[in-house]
């Protein structure tokens, strides 16, 4: 029974550690900043473990040893006192050396982190909202400035500069596989440089409690080869595709007549709201509602029909729509690739 329990415990630990690989983990670095931090974590943990073991041995040893008989408690033993003094001095000295060493390591790691984006060619402005991310690609040419939401495409292997701010409360941007976390503060701009070594999808999460749906405020960094990234940017700059079917046409009309238009923007239509995610190319995104649902026609319909059931407290209101109206709007939005 006891053996069974210990095997079960070991299995559970192994399974838990398995969870540290891949999808969103600081122990699974995919970029230079995260590698630096992961190395630092392991080195600190290892060194501190060694020190802890040594201290425990030093504490346990006198308990195990037989006390030596001393002749007279009041007789001074200068030799023994000197030995003790040397041991304590050496321990204090070693502690100081280790602490200074760790401080220096941390300092140099910070220098490495700060240098990652010094030559970044791409600047992305990430604005936190309750509970989604606004993503704006800066460019010297105004017509190439692109606004999207929740998914951040970046070229792989190149440093990217993120400018982080918020419009309501403090959020925190954290993509553990790529870098440490940094707060998004209303009225203040923080700068975070990231770099992904290889193409891939890296999940991120708001890491500062920001209200009811803090847990459902996810983001994705999608690193792609440069050519693919440029093609994506050019695609996203296009105005929205026109409705492809009669149903979608009805959907577009409804979108413009109903509350949707008060908050959302769709490029190429009169819808120009900027307080909610830009929907110009919503059909091309992988998730809905900041990583809460995967993108599909069913999920789109569910989200529009009852956002307060899926993400209670979110700022997307319940809109009064009939079944046919809902279908038409979903058909239109789904086609916005």
């Amino acid at each position: 029974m006891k053996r069974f329990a210990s095997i079960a415990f070991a299995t559970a630990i192994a399974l838990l550690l398995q969870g540290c690989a891949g999808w969103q983990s600081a122990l699974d670095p995919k970029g230079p900043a995260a590698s630096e931090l992961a190395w630092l974590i392991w080195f600190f943990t290892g060194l501190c473990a060694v020190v802890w073991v040594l201290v425990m041995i030093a504490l346990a040893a006198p308990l195990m040893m037989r006390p030596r008989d001393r002749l007279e408690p009041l007789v001074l033993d200068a030799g023994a006192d000197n030995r003790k003094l040397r041991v304590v001095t050496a321990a204090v000295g070693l502690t100081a050396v280790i602490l200074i060493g760790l401080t220096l390591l941390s300092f140099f790691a910070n220098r490495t982190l700060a240098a990652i984006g010094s030559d970044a060619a791409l600047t992305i402005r990430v604005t936190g909202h309750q509970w989604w991310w606004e993503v704006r690609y800066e460019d010297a040419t105004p017509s190439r400035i692109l606004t999207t939401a929740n998914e951040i495409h970046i070229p792989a292997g190149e440093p990217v500069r993120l400018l982080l701010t918020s419009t309501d409360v403090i959020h925190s941007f954290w993509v553990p596989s790529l870098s440490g976390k940094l707060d998004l503060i209303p009225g203040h701009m923080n700068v975070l440089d990231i770099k992904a070594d290889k193409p891939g999808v890296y999940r991120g999460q708001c890491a500062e409690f920001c209200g009811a749906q803090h847990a459902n405020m996810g983001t994705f960094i999608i690193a792609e080869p440069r050519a693919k990234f440029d093609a994506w940017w050019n695609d996203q700059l296009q105005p929205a595709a026109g409705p492809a079917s009669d149903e979608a046409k009805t959907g577009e009309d409804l979108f413009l007549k109903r509350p949707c238009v008060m908050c959302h923007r769709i490029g190429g239509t009169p819808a120009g709201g900027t307080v909610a995610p830009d929907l110009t190319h919503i059909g091309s995104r992988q998730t809905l509602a900041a990583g809460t649902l995967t993108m599909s026609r069913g999920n789109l319909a569910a989200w529009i029909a009852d956002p307060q059931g899926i993400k209670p407290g979110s700022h997307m209101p319940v809109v009064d729509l009939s079944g046919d109206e809902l279908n038409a709007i979903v058909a239109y939005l789904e086609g916005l690739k």
Partner: protein
Amino acid sequence: MRSTAAMLLLAILALAACQREERDTRPQSALGSGEQPTPVTTLEPGGQRPSPTDNKAASFEANAFHLSEGKRLFGWFNCSGCHANGGGGMGPALMDEKWIYGSSMESIHATIRDGRPNGMPSFRDKIPDDQIWELAAFVRSLSGNAPSSAAPSRNDDMMVHPSENRMPDAATLGKSP
């Protein structure tokens, strides 16, 4: 024994105070703003609309959550474009306790929903009905008509006027103390 019971009772009473109000994140939506009658004349006794057909006004006007949501929507829907944070500009001022079309929640709701002559557009079908009620409740708080325990407090960003819960109440507005 008796003191323990008294302490327990006190603790229960104190905990009861933690319940501030009900916050309904999923309001009843079956009734859209389009299903209510539109008044065909502005000739209403005292500029007021007839008594309401539902009791929404009462549940929205002293509710801190709805008032702060109204404040957010006031900014989001660009009411300030004409009403300038309640100070008035192209549209009338909203913080002076002077009402052209009535000061009741129902009147303000009707103003937002149906529009008014000389510029106020109709937001029927554009804003869900509950959000119109939230806006109406917030507009009333601009002139100190909402209880200060529920009216929105200071902004996180720059403030253009004292927070709504520090506005003078409607009775003393405009009078020197």
